[in-house]
């Protein structure tokens, strides 16, 4: 079955043409013209990915992202006209997984959606449960458990954790994380990594202000404490 994309965008022309392109690329698209409509559509028919424009009349894209994130771990891509501004960081902090900048190129958008939907390959690792500190990563079920309770990680956060857990104690640069998790090349936006590490810490660290599990290595990147 084709993955369902919920596309929340107030500009009808953009919505129409990008929907057509995405459909051609093999996705099913549900359209919404406002934040309110989008949230209602999400309730009615949970999508696999949400695409949301940040500048919406009424409930804006940031609010929609926050509301969706409270309710679900669905991958969210924000659409912004300002790639360099604080909009991107604010959107990512609100809970978005990735972003695209207008003018949006349909092929790029489709590639982004596919990257987000890609599951973590279990690979050649023989163990299906990886222990990191007091966490258990159940690789086949794609869940992280602590003290018998499943942690509410988004798919992207889970991927970041898995990438770090692959080589505990080794430093992964931001570029490496961008390649492994988001499938970006050398020029991916490192702010993606930093905001996701921040969110991940708030979920897996006992004290997120003093991270003991995911450690920042100044000038290099991040590593998982062993």
């Amino acid at each position: 079955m084709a993955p369902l994309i919920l596309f929340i965008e107030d500009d009808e022309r953009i919505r129409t043409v990008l929907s057509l392109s995405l459909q051609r690329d093999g996705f099913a698209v549900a359209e919404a013209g406002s934040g309110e409509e989008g949230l209602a559509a999400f309730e009615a028919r949970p999508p696999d990915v949400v695409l949301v424009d940040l500048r919406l009349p009424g409930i804006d894209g940031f609010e929609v992202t926050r509301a969706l994130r409270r309710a679900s771990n669905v991958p969210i891509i924000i659409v912004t006209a300002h790639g360099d501004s604080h909009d991107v960081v604010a959107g990512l902090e609100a809970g978005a997984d990735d972003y695209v900048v207008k003018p949006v190129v349909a092929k790029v958008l489709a590639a982004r959606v596919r990257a987000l939907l890609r599951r973590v390959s279990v690979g050649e690792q023989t163990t299906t449960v990886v222990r990191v500190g007091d966490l258990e990563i159940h690789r086949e079920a794609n869940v992280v458990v602590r003290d018998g309770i499943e942690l509410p990680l988004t798919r992207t956060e889970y991927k970041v954790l898995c990438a770090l857990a692959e080589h505990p104690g080794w430093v992964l640069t931001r570029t490496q994380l961008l390649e492994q998790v988001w499938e970006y090349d050398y020029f991916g936006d490192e702010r993606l990594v930093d905001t996701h590490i921040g969110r991940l810490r708030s979920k897996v660290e006992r004290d997120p202000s003093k991270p003991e599990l995911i450690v920042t290595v100044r000038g290099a990147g991040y590593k998982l404490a062993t």
Partner: protein
Amino acid sequence: MRPWPRAGGRSRRSRPSLRTRTALTFGLGAALVSTAVALITYALADHELLSQRQNSSLRQTYVDARLFKEELASPEARLEDVLSSLARANGVQVLVNRDRLWFSTSALVGSASLPASLVSAVLAGHPADQRIYLQGMPAFAVGIPIPSVNAYYFEIHSLAELRSTLETLAIVLAAAAAAATVGGTLLGLGASRRLVRPLAATARVAGEIAAGRLDQRLPPDADLGPLVDAFNDMVARLQERIERDARFAADLSHELRSPLTTVGASVELVDAYRQALPADGRTAVDLLKAEIDRFSDMVQDLLEISRVDAGAEPVELDPVLIGELVEHTAAAHPSPVAVRVQPAAAGSVVLGDKRRLQRVLVNLLDNAQVHAGGSSLVWVDRRDGAVEIAVEDHGPGVDPAEAELIFERFYRGKAAGRRSAVAGSGLGLALVAEHVRAHQGSVRVEPAPGGGSRFVVTLPVVTQ
């Protein structure tokens, strides 16, 4: 490149600075006043002391003359004895003329020591006095006729002591005048420093504003009130204007992004069905795609440069391995190019914004693509604590007269009068200059060996 006036730098000076002039004026004033005071003081002291001394000498001579007369009045007194018995104050010489003969208390002093006019006046029966020089030293001579003993009594009072007193006074006054001059100069320096301080502050703020920090203002200053107000007002208007212009360009390009998305995605969609189109339809789609790409780039560049102008472009400075960045950028560019990172530059780290540095190189490669059919070689090397990134091509080269101009916005060179099918936005090199400047670097164009041109970006290297 914008020729901003270098407000922070030193301007050429054809005359001494205000500070020097103020200090000199103060010094000269102090010198004039103190010298005048010293001269008047000296003149008054000289006059006063001299007249006092002359009066006392005169009185003493009369007293001595009376004593002399009384001693000589006794019948058995001899003049020589009387003369030698006279108790004389120090520095006083006595001469007596009696019966045309001269008697003196000192062998060194004779009638020749006295001026002839004085002698003749006294010998004519009139008391007289006169300032004279005795053996080169100032002295005061007094002559009194004493008819009762038929003698003429003269005394010469040395004024050497007075002169040495005056000399000491002169030295003290000269020293005081010199001290006052030096003090005045120092005072002038201090005052001028205070005077110039607000001007220095103004220059500093003007320099920062010229460098793009438009939110800088002068602090209120009691002395420069109107100037500060006018200056701040001017900067506020300037800021408003620049921000309005920048906002206009940003808003414009921003507004264009939505229709561009629609148009671009629509053409992509049409292109996906190109097999269904007749040949001329396909040509039209290709043209449309190329033009939309160009338009999109232009909007992108316009937005970018307006953000730079508005100072809104964030410069996120992270350590960047420059060789690696150049290799990645060149590899991602549509037209293939050889990259040579010299061993000396291999580990060079630049403090920079990866995305903007990428834009610099991409724009240079695009420029080579448009004007020279692509870059022939990109190399990275170390030179004098900096890293040089060069993009060479085998194109027609850049006229040296245009070497600066091509970094201006929308500059179309003489050679580029015709529009090629792959014309740029006209902002590419201007953005290169802006981004490089934001990294404290520089960019230049020079002839490449073997023809063509070579664009060289120089960036400071982080020393570890």
